């Protein structure tokens, strides 16, 4: 089965699943597979990505790293604008278009970010979130080798994200791999401290990442920072007070 067919199959099977109850226990029916992939990714990180990121951090001044973050963030501008529009947020979408135009020109093809200071902040939107807003259930937690935490809905949506980013406008198809590599290494270099701390602060690293991903993803889809009433009750009601 080709990769694309596999992804389509996953999305379809996710659609067939009933919406998952949002309770305290993180739904993870594919845990054996996920844990194996997670371990693989962690080893890859420990032996390859983290050392490379450390080297990168040593060689590249902070300003260069920040500029690269800005540059790659700007390439996602059209995708962010489109998804805000699809999610029924025309004002945010317009701000994203303005941001993309300003940062691509005044910001020298995106290496600088004057738009944030001019009231056009960076938004985090992708097609997976749009599907979530449209009511498509995410399906179970799923860890991909190399790509990391995801779910069937968001995995399928990556195809749309790829098309709607402007990598392919800037550069030939063959440039995708070197650009993705630089973007990944640079992002890893930025997160050296955070990841180290996260590992140290967790008692079960796999569960910490899974829960963090699920909570963060839910917050992004719902575009809000507070919990629903049921989530709130599940989380903050003491056992003694429950009947």
């Amino acid at each position, binding site marked *: 089965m080709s990769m694309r067919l596999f992804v389509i199959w996953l999305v379809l099977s996710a659609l067939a699943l009933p919406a998952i109850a949002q309770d*305290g*226990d*993180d739904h993870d029916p594919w845990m054996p597979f996920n844990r194996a992939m997670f371990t693989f990714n962690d080893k890859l990180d420990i032996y390859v990505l983290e050392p490379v990121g450390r080297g990168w951090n040593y060689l590249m001044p*902070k300003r260069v790293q*920040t500029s690269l973050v800005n540059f790659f963030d700007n390439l996602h501008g059209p995708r962010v604008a489109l998804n805000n529009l699809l999610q029924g947020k025309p004002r945010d979408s317009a701000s994203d278009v303005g941001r993309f135009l300003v940062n691509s020109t005044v910001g020298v093809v995106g290496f600088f970010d004057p738009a944030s200071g001019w009231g056009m902040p*960076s938004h985090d939107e992708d097609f997976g979130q749009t599907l979530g807003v449209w009511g498509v259930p995410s399906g179970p937690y799923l860890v991909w080798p190399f790509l990391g935490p995801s779910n069937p809905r968001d995995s399928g949506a990556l195809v749309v994200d790829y098309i709607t980013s402007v990598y392919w406008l800037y550069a030939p198809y063959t440039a995708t791999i070197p650009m993705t590599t630089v973007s990944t290494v640079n992002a890893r270099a930025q997160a050296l*401290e955070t990841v180290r*701390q996260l590992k*140290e*602060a*967790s*008692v*079960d690293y796999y*569960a*910490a990442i*899974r*829960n*963090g991903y699920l*909570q*963060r993803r*839910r*917050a*992004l889809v719902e575009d809000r*920072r*507070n*919990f629903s*009433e049921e989530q*709130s*009750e599940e*989380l*903050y*009601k*003491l*056992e003694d007070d429950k009947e």
Partner: protein
Amino acid sequence: MITAMRATRCGLNVFLIACVAWTAMAAKHVLAEEGPRDVVGKTADTVVGILADKALNADQKRGKIEDIARQYFDFTTLSRLVLARHWKELNDEQQNQFVNEFRRHLSLTYGKNVEKYDNEKAVITGDREEKDGDWTVNTKILRPSGEPFLVDYRLRKRDGRWMVIDVVIEGVSLVANFRSQFQEIVSRDGPVKLIQILRDKNDKGEPLKS
């Protein structure tokens, strides 16, 4: 007619004075009681002050911040929420041990951040009362390097004082995250084993006293 008007005016004046006095009393009452917003604001200011104090070394900073955390974080409620239904499987002494080890784990791992302070500032952006009487205070952490991020504090009143029972960073709740982490260990090996795991981890991570 004039008398009537005067009487009304007089009545109005009395009413106004009563209103002002009541407002003043209410304000004084609130100040004395220290609302959830004040608790978060004061704590954030004090912590930033300690972190920025060049006269203190890392250990002194850690010690001071730990004292503040003990004062404003309700570690008992935090522990109960994190263990959820498994809390009752522990006896009183074990519950105390758990609270103690969990607090130690948090202060050891997050205490290391004192050396990483890079002029971050906390700004309160809003607050609201929750259905169950808890209070949520929204803050934004501004960093000289990089995008700001959002941190929400949930507070609950205990013995007349507002104390923090959860920290939610960019939508990720600390309570929910630890609950999920402890779930598997507790349902497989029981909560007593979890105390042991935490204790071992803490003993290994304890910074050497110089």
